């Protein structure tokens, strides 16, 4: 069987289930939701299609850039349509605490149980890794390029226009590293210290970007000379010929995770799929299609990813060692949520 990228069908089928559950093979399908675009296409080829074939299920796909509000309304309404969501790990944790996400039984998900503990939570399994890195224009910095957040904050040594993401996640981590905190000593974040450090760089920030596409555009157009951006976005414009580069040094390693909606219509199949989706071989296929790293580090042992390719990926062990691993547990704690809320007043001051 194949995956069907057909939301209408997904709705119709889920609807049929809700109204009597007589649809044929009702248990052998799930609705999977991701973020669309090139990313979802890559995972369809690498992970979704092979998983569907191996398990003999149908995977109906839907995509949405930001799944959180919909998760909340779907589960809140008591009749969720989606089963599995690929979303920033923080949403899975927050959703778990708010009763919107199913607690996982790892005895049924052996592939995930074998992953490092920091790569999973009671509600989620890391699915792919990306990194918030320091990116810069090679035109502005042909040599002696900025190589750390200390450099990013050093406006004298590295004059130029700067951009940061209009979001506290990863930005506070960068600020603390700029202030001398070691990447593995970040958590719990010293929020006051981070905001203080951010105040310092604030007058030199030209743009606070809100979308990944915008960050790539800014660098590509020469609107900014150095910025925090996601590694895949930077390498994409670099491939198109822009003179831009980035460093994994002091990058903030982030992940999206798979989680299952509370009361998902096809819970059992969803759990089976979750296990299959983090299978090392499927996972190893992902970076052959897009510049993101596998969520399961065992993928690097399969031999599918060539060493030179692995070296480009954010979650490759040597690259991962240079970076800070984001703690979504901290961000979904009360202190993390308070830091998020503080961001709005920081921006408007």
């Amino acid at each position, binding site marked *: 069987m194949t995956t069907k990228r057909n939301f209408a069908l997904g709705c119709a089928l889920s609807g049929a289930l809700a109204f009597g559950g007589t649809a044929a093979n009702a248990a052998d399908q799930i609705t999977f939701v991701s973020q669309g675009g090139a990313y979802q296409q890559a995972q369809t080829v690498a992970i979704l299609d092979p998983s569907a074939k191996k398990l003999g299920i149908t995977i109906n796909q839907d995509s949405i850039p930001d799944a959180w*509000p919909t998760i*909340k309304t779907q589960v809140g309404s008591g009749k969720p349509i989606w089963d599995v969501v690929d979303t920033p790990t923080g949403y899975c944790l927050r959703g778990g605490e708010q009763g919107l996400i199913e607690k996982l039984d790892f005895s049924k998900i052996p592939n995930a149980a074998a992953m490092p503990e920091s790569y999973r939570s009671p509600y989620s399994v890391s699915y792919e890794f990306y990194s918030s890195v320091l990116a810069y224009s090679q035109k502005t910095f042909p040599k002696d390029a900025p190589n750390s957040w200390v450099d990013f904050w050093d406006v004298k040594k590295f004059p130029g226009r700067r951009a940061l993401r209009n979001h506290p996640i990863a930005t506070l981590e960068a600020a603390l590293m700029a202030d001398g905190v070691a990447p593995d000593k970040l958590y719990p974040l010293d929020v006051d210290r981070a905001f203080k450090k951010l105040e310092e760089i604030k007058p030199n920030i030209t743009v*606070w970007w*809100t979308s990944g596409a915008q960050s790539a555009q800014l660098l590509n157009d020469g609107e900014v000379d150095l910025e925090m951006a996601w590694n895949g976005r930077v390498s994409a414009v670099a491939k198109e010929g822009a003179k831009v580069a980035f460093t994994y040094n002091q990058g903030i390693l982030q992940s999206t995770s798979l989680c299952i909606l509370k009361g998902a219509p096809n819970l059992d199949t969803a759990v089976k799929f979750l296990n299959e989706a983090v299978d090392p071989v499927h996972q190893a296929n992902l970076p052959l299609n897009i510049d993101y790293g596998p969520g399961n580090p065992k993928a690097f042992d399969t031999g599918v990813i060539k060493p030179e390719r692995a070296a480009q990926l954010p979650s490759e062990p040597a690259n991962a060692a240079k970076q800070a691993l984001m703690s979504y547990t901290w961000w979904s704690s009360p202190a993390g949520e308070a830091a998020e809320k503080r961001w709005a*007043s920081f921006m*408007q001051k």
Partner: protein
Amino acid sequence: MTLVPDPSQKHQRREHGLMLALVSPALLVILLLIVLPVGWLAWQSIYHDGFTLENYRRVFTEDIYWRSFALTFEISLGVTVIALLLGYPVAYLANSVPKGWSILILSLVVLPFWTSVLVRAYAWLALLQRTGVINQFLRYLDVISEPLALVHNTFGTVVATVHILLPFMVLPLYATMQKIPGDLMQAGASLGASPSLTFMRVFLPLSLPGVLAGCTMVFVLCLGFYITPELLGGGRTVMVSMLVSRNVELYNQFGAASAVAVVLLLSVLAIFFVVSRFISLDRVLGQK
């Protein structure tokens, strides 16, 4: 004793029934797509595990909300004034030239309507950014040595917003000016007034309803602007609509978002109410 229905009354009632049947699909659509969601929205702002006014307390006492509302009203006011200054001469010109020319002018005013707001925002980005057309041209002319910061700030936001809202100023102005009888101007001239005096004493006062209508339209539409400040504001120009979306996406506070939206909606209704004391609302909304 029973009432014998008057045949004409019966006819009238049947006609009313028919009218109601005809408009009911539209009413249903409005009910389902506007009244219910807005009602649900308002409900969310006051109900979260019990009744609460916490969301409104925050909107009215917390600094960031105040700042955002103040900024939104400031920008809307600025945009309205600029649109009026730019739009009035255009409407005046369209009104005073022969028909063929006025059609041309009005088409040029309306033309941008057919381009999406998103495309126009990006077009402004292409014009205004550091490596944009305007900066490169000025550097080519040696007028400036460093690129000007024309976008990713409030300036860029205002420029693009004025561009997008200008038709909403010009059209009501033109409609009002059309209805000012030319005879009055001639009468003024025949009594010895100079053209500028007839304009000031006759034309301008008679065009004021159009000014009010245009200004109301532009101001109210600007209050809800989202894409333009999001793309051209550089992240610092946080207008109320952005506050709504950030509350949902970033801070996960549906109640707070609803409260902000309700306050914005009520401010718009209040503005319409005040304006309706001066001119008929049909003028503002339908450009009668």
